[in-house]
């Protein structure tokens, strides 16, 4: 058992941390809130140069061939610094499933562009119902000759406004089981018939509505097998759940630290407010929650990294992250008093991202149901020992 990172991992963390602290101080975050693109292309270029977009991509496709741990650490630090970039959609939502499900040709063509050139990708799954399971996907892709024709619309597609390419999940066949008949398409964001509008959201992570009006997609642009797209979606959700939870864990840690620091400095009734039990005990509960979340994320990541992912742990990590992140932000702000509610303090910047993060890769109800499904399948030890 080992609850620590290796020295190499600590070094990676240190360099990422320093990069973000230098390149993305909170003033930059505030500045990017008003930016139309929602990210800083110069910073993005630097990230690409440092190999960050290729962290989990093998060397043969232009990446640095890191472990899952490397990207996990990266996401934690990103969450700690709330860095606005198209990293998550590009790398987690798109590059990772392409690496897993792509044909050799697709991988050779696409992955180096992401790893070496920082090509931006976006992932389109959610629709008007905002359901995260397969039943929420109704957009149709009809086959016509060698091509498919996409019609319908997608919502909350992050950074689609600046994406070159899209992964789009659509329904190619009707089936009783909604998880059947789905197909994932690689779609050129500039293709005819694709219209993109930015939806104003509090996280300013460039959520877009994408409308597809008779968009032609060649058959070669299918990722994975036609009709078996749910396997790809599921892979994306499982991995994104853990990495989004890592981002949230980093953010929750930062919020806790900010608040504890404030509770030591701020005095009322001639005492630091942290000496009042109402404040102190809540901070203690926050500490426990934050530490718990951190290790739950690591535990899920450890299973992925060692090649035996646990659906149960992945869902636990995300379900916990959803709850903890909000509670820590809410109570953190309230403990600050009025100043915590202003844009002068950093804490609000974290809270603005709560709902965006919650819905990426699955909200709590959704993951709780997945956990229950795993419990249904499991066999308790007390029955097996004496069996």
């Amino acid at each position: 058992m080992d609850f620590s990172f290796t020295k190499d991992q600590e070094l990676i963390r240190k360099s990422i941390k320093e990069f973000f602290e230098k390149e993305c101080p909170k003033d930059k975050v505030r500045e990017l809130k008003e930016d139309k693109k929602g990210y800083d292309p110069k910073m993005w270029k630097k990230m690409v140069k440092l190999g960050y977009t290729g962290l989990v991509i093998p060397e043969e496709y232009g990446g640095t061939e890191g472990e899952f741990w490397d990207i996990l650490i990266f996401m934690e630090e990103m969450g700690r610094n709330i860095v606005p970039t198209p990293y998550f959609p590009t790398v987690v939502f798109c590059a990772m499933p392409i690496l897993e499900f792509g044909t050799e040709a697709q991988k050779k063509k696409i992955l180096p562009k992401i790893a070496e050139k920082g090509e931006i990708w976006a992932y389109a799954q959610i629709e008007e119902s905002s359901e995260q399971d397969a039943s929420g996907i109704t957009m149709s892709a009809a086959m016509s000759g060698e091509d498919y024709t996409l019609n319908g619309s997608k919502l909350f597609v992050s950074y689609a406004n600046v994406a070159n390419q899209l992964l789009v999940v659509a329904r190619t066949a009707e089936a009783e089981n909604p998880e059947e008949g789905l197909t994932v398409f690689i779609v050129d964001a500039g293709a005819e018939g694709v219209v993109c509008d930015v939806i104003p959201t509090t996280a300013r992570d460039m959520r877009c509505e994408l409308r597809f009006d008779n968009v032609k997609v060649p058959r070669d642009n299918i990722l994975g097998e036609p009709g078996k797209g749910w396997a790809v979606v599921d892979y994306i959700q499982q991995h994104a759940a853990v990495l989004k939870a890592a981002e949230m864990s980093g953010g929750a840690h930062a919020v806790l630290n900010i608040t504890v620091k404030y509770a030591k400095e701020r005095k009322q009734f001639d005492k630091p407010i942290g000496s009042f039990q109402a404040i102190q005990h809540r901070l203690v509960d926050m500490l426990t929650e934050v530490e718990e979340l951190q290790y739950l994320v690591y535990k899920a990541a450890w299973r992925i990294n060692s090649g035996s992912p646990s659906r149960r742990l992945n869902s636990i990590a995300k379900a916990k992250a959803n709850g903890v992140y909000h509670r820590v932000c809410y109570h953190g702000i309230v403990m600050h008093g009025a100043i915590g509610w202003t844009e002068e303090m950093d804490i609000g910047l974290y809270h603005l991202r709560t709902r965006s993060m919650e819905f990426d890769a699955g909200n709590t109800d959704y993951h709780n149901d997945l956990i229950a499904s795993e419990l249904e399948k499991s066999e308790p030890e007390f029955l097996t020992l004496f069996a």
Partner: protein
Amino acid sequence: MDFQFGKKEEEFRSEIREFVKEHIPQNEYGHMFEEEHEDKSWEFSMSIAKKLAQKRWLTLTWPKEFGGMGASFMERLVFSEEVGYWGIPGVGMGVSGTAWVGPSLMLFGTKEQQEKYIPLIAAGDPDGVWCTGYSEPDSGSDLASLQTSCVRDGDEYIINGQKVWTSAAHRSRWCWMAVRTDSNVKKKHHGLSLVIVDMKSEGLTVRPLKNYVGLHYFNEIFLSDVRIPVENLVGQENNGWNHLMQALSFERGVALGFTASCRRMLDELINHTKETGLIKKTLVRQRLAELEADLEGARTLAYEAVWKMENGLSRIYEPSRDKANVDLLFEKMSRFGSDILGAFSQLDPLHADPRWAKIGGIYENLFHACPGIAIAAGTTDTQRNIVGQFGLQLPRSY
């Protein structure tokens, strides 16, 4: 036991609803706290204030001779409810003037002050808009530790210092300010005074303090050798703490309309789940039911507090109990409502585009408003301190 309003109150309610039908567009509900943010909405609010003043509703609890309608606590409850449910703007003109400046001046202001300031408020005049300068950077919950100095100089006072969290300062003509007129005191509660500061004074600057969503509600006020005439002292010099406590007591009941706002927001949510069929889902049903029960409870307690006031039975703790209760309700509503709205709950409430925003963006608004609500007018914990001391007679815990 009787949980019904009387005939008089119900008739008043009908009259208000007629007013609403005529003057208040209902497609824009839910922009809580936004009244003072934009010039446009402020102007509209002030136009409604004028109309309310004509009805004597702007200052309905005031005695008739001061331009009020001498409303009972119950009528005030009805009015607050309708304001909350229909989102009637302009009601407080920044709250301070109608809620406590006017009543305080009646109680311990000079006749000259009464004659100068009160009619402007009651008339819904732009010169009747007030803000309140209590909080300072280092004194929030601990109000008595305030440091803004106010030194007599002949016929004037000279004020130096800083106020913070001043809502509506950017819309106000006057500031109702607590200052320190004597700093050589043993107890920090001594040596305080209340003064009226002209917001157009030389040396006074207002700096917007936007909230983290971008809403301009709070301000800082910087005072550098600001001079006010001695006649702007309210009540006795150095007796400010007592006056302050009296003024604060008028703040009670400000939260009255909150449960009606909750009612409206919950009604909107229920209606949305009916329209979309979401109400058939088990988890949606459980969440709606829990909110319904909490809201029914909060509302009933709020009524009880008013009934006690009306009948002279009020103990001091009920408004604090209800504020803390409503803080928790707002938080739960914002969370459950967001859960029900799903991914749509991430929309920016300040740019609630009807193309995407569900229910006019009110839940997105609430989600980010509710930590602010829990802080405003005494944090939830401060309210609990008050209830502990006065409701349970427990020793001070802070």
